[in-house]
């Protein structure tokens, strides 16, 4: 959004009204102003959102303070509200989904961009864009009617038999829970990762590949050691997009997560996410404190998104430095 750094050499402060009018006539100033307003509106909306969430949760914030983050109880009748199980559920389901979606998505993008014939690649891209546009309630239905029974009758019993010694795969197999929610989220975010990563990989200059091949690399070496590192920032961007969607997803998650505020190491256990509990309870939340506690959860989700995005950015910075070092070697 750096519209200010156009090629105009005299883009400093306006000195006289005459020169301003002249430039106005040229239209540059108008474009500058309008695009600036567009860019500023993003910041304004964000600030307004934080302000509203902050104002709307004043009672709950004063009553619970930081204990809100550490309390496990959510009891509207007793007026006790804690965010911990919902934070846990949101983070765990998002993490599971990225764990599945990132390797699959990037792998598919590499195939489409580097290995597949252009016709196949374009046709598949059409389907991927279609998948990205499917409303989340449809994914929720797919999850509830297809993934849940599949998990309960096939995948969970097999996981229990083979990896049951791990704490992650214990307890009764209801079919719903953290793992199922993570899988449905993964299905939802894979199209984003593929679509954006494929575009980025395709935009890597041809010279890069040819140079690697000319130095005697195999096709795979040129892809993995040259093309992918070149496109790293864009690929990371696709993962951000996926993370943002996974954190905030409401409808599909609530249909398959079990909606029980619990904290458990087992991914088979039913859980709850922040977005899901807000959607479930806000319409019937009466009194003063109860709706405010739900709004505070919204604030927590905002904060969580902010922190996780920040952490991811730091991670990229760290890996990109290592990556460029490797490229030089």
């Amino acid at each position, binding site marked *: 959004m750096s519209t200010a750094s156009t090629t105009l050499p005299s883009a400093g402060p306006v000195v006289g009204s005459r020169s301003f009018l002249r430039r106005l006539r040229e239209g540059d100033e108008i474009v500058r102003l309008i695009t600036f307003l567009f860019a500023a509106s993003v910041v304004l909306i964000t600030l307004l959102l934080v302000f509203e969430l902050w104002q709307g949760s004043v009672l709950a914030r004063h009553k619970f303070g930081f204990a809100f983050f550490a309390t496990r109880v959510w009891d509207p009748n007793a007026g006790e509200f804690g965010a911990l199980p919902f934070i846990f559920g949101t983070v765990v389901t998002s993490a599971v989904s990225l764990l599945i979606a990132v390797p699959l998505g990037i792998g598919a993008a590499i195939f489409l961009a580097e290995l597949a014939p252009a016709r196949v690649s374009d046709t598949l891209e059409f389907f991927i864009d279609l998948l990205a546009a499917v409303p989340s309630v449809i994914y929720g239905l797919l999850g509830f009617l297809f993934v849940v029974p599949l998990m309960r009758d096939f995948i969970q019993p097999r996981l229990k038999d083979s990896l049951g010694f791990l704490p992650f795969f214990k307890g009764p197999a209801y079919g719903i829970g953290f793992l199922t929610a993570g899988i449905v989220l993964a299905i939802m975010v894979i199209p984003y990762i593929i679509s954006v990563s494929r575009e980025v990989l395709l935009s890597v200059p041809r010279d890069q590949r040819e140079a690697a091949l000319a130095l005697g690399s195999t096709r795979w070496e040129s892809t993995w050691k040259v093309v992918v590192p070149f496109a790293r920032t864009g690929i990371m961007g696709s993962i951000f997009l996926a993370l943002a969607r996974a954190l905030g997803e409401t409808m599909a998650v609530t*249909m398959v997560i079990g909606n029980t505020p619990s904290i458990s190491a087992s991914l088979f256990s039913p859980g709850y996410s922040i977005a899901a509990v807000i959607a479930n309870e806000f*319409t*019937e939340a009466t009194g003063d404190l109860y709706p405010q506690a739900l709004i505070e959860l919204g604030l927590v989700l905002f904060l969580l998104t902010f922190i996780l995005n920040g952490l991811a950015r730091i991670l990229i910075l760290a890996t990109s430095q290592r990556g460029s070092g490797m490229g030089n070697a």
Partner: protein
Amino acid sequence: MYSKWFDEYHKKDTNIEINYQSIGSGGGIKQVTEGTVDFGASDGPMNDDQLKAFQDKHGFAILHFPTVLGAVVPTYNIPGVTTDLNFTPEALSGIFLGKITKWNDPAIAGANKGVNLPGNDIVVVHRSDGSGTSYIWTDYLSKISDEWKSKVGKGASVNWPVGLGGKGNEGVAGLVKQTANAVGYVELIYAIQNKMPYGTVKNSSGAFIKADLAGVTAAAAGAAKNMPDDFRVSITDAPGKAAYPISSFTWLLIPAKFSDGAKRDALKGFVKWMLADGQNYAESLSYAKLPKEVVAKEVKALDGIQ
């Protein structure tokens, strides 16, 4: 139900159009209190704090008018069991408190002689979204179990001791259908429309009643004798031999004073029609009619609106 009534009434008197939004009791009560809407509707009555908040803000009261009756039924999915199960209050509270965990527990088996109940773990399913259905269900459990009352209480959303949450009647029904050995609760109208199996519940006279519209009206009639003047009465666990114990009124919330006379008369006209002709539409939509005693009392109360 309300959309049907407003449609029919509009056909009858085309001058009157009622704009109805279904936004949930929380928002509904808030909007009524703030005066952004002329009147509201709710599955659960307003509590004393909410009434006081209205009184303080406007200087006059908000009145409750019962409109129809609904009921909530226990539904289940036990492989091999095809007969209607009988549920005692002790069994229902025990299951939902997480104290009864097997289907062949004596508390369940005792009321179901001759049914071959398995020794499997019970999977409890409840509503995850705040709802009038949960309100009625937890109101009933609070009445028949002191432990439930002190530990959990009643409300549109509560801190459930056990179980999985499904969104909406369809979410609960879907989970129960999918999950072997599950038990949940849904609105009677939903169970009837979707032909779901549901159990009988033992009422305060000791009879096992399979919920139907007559049983619900009977519960209302049993409670009508002691109907308070503000109509805010819970008819769960109502007296009467034929009364189905998990029944409830739904209410219109109408301010006691209107500044706009034309609006007041229009609304009064609608409520009068709803109490007379309008009641005939209830049963076709699987809601139970109001008992005559309640209608008579409401018509009288309607005159009090200024």
